[in-house]
């Protein structure tokens, strides 16, 4: 049995299979890149959205929240928070943190300016408009 | 595939090949008629199953190996064609 199962053939299958499926992956990626503009509405990415994403990143929001389901599971999903709560609520909420309620999960105070809060909302609004194949299942995220 | 000394008029593999070609033409013909329905679907899928078994056993040479190997392919085939059949019957009221 071992004569007809050779290491050389196993190795060839490894290299061949890896290259083959990576090429397939590149092909699918290429198609995805062609299709994405229709789904992510990149024409709506304003300077404000760009700045908002930067604020999102430099406050490490992903360390507690999920965004489109990715991140930490300590705090609510924010991919659809704009549709759930609306812009003014989001601004007021961020500005009012932390709640200080004893024993409850706390969100830090980031001392964002009004402009920065607007950028944050713009980013979350744009995110809520991405075509995510109807995810999340309901408004609670 | 076959030993050279046996006095064949046509080689067994050639016979298999001719049958496979004929079955393909029959499937195409059914497609051209535009028929549909459970019986047609089962005929076409059944033809495919027979063809796959012919390729596996005669072309791939599995009929001269242990049942384990034939069994894997046959089991795969039954599972796949069975699930396809179930999916199709689901749509027939």
């Amino acid at each position, binding site marked *: *049995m071992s*004569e*007809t*199962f*050779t290491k050389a*053939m*196993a190795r060839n*299958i490894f290299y*061949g*299979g890896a290259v*083959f499926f990576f*090429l*397939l992956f590149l*092909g699918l990626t290429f*198609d995805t890149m*062609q*299709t994405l503009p229709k789904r992510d509405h990149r024409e709506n990415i304003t300077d404000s959205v760009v700045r908002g994403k930067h604020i999102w990143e430099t406050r490490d929001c992903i360390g507690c929240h999920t965004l489109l389901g990715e991140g930490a599971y300590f705090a609510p999903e924010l991919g659809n928070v704009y549709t759930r709560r609306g812009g003014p609520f989001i601004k007021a909420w961020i500005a009012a943190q932390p709640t200080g309620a004893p024993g409850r999960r706390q969100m830090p105070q980031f001392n964002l300016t009004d402009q920065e809060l607007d950028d944050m909302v713009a980013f979350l609004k744009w995110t809520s408009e991405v075509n995510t194949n109807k995810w999340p299942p309901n408004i609670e995220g | *595939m*076959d*030993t050279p000394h*046996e006095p064949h008029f046509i*080689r067994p*593999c*050639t016979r298999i*090949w001719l049958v*496979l*070609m004929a079955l*393909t*033409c029959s*499937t*195409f013909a059914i*497609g*051209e008629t535009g028929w*549909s329905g459970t019986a*047609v*679907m089962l005929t*076409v*899928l059944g033809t*495919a199953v027979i063809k*796959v078994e012919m*390729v*596996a056993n*005669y*072309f*791939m*040479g*599995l009929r*001269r*190996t*242990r049942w384990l*190997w034939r069994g*894997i392919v046959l089991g*795969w085939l039954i*599972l*796949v064609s069975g*699930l*396809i059949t179930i*999916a*199709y019957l689901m*749509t027939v009221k």
Partner: protein
Amino acid sequence: MINNTRTSHEIHATPPGDLAIWFFIFAELLAFGVFFVAYAFARAHNVELFNESQQHLNRLSGAINTLVLITSSYFMVRAVAAIKQGYSILCARWIASAIGLGFVFLAIKMAEFHEKFSAGISLSTNTFYMFYLSLTLFHFMHVILGMVILAAIMLKARNGSYSPANHTGVETGASYWHMVDLLWIILFPLVYVIR
């Protein structure tokens, strides 16, 4: 290497070719199998769309391609038979013919793809076309991979690297090529014919 010559009545412990390729073949069968079943169930949820879209496929070219692949597969059977009798050059010629038919398959398939792509059809058009394009493109790439394998074996056969006692390489390539054929035998009726 002693027991490599397969005679007609013996039962062998392992299938023809290197056992390693069979792991690959089974993995491929599994991947395609899941895709076939997924197609069937996706269709069950969307029968009208699938039946309607199927009308626009070129059934004739699908059927011709089936004949092409079966014949090509048959040529590989002849190639294996030739090398078992020690005819290296004959074996290489059979493999070359099998590869030639592979090119015919690719040409017909590309014409079909061209027709669909120029009609603006893509993976995102609808579920049917997603499956049609995924399955056929995935299979298309397997045909290319199979041809690469066959080409390598053909060159080795031409150099006289195989003999009646040592022809596992030819059988390995042939087994993979038969699998490519086998998958198309299911794919064609499933996607082009059954409704």
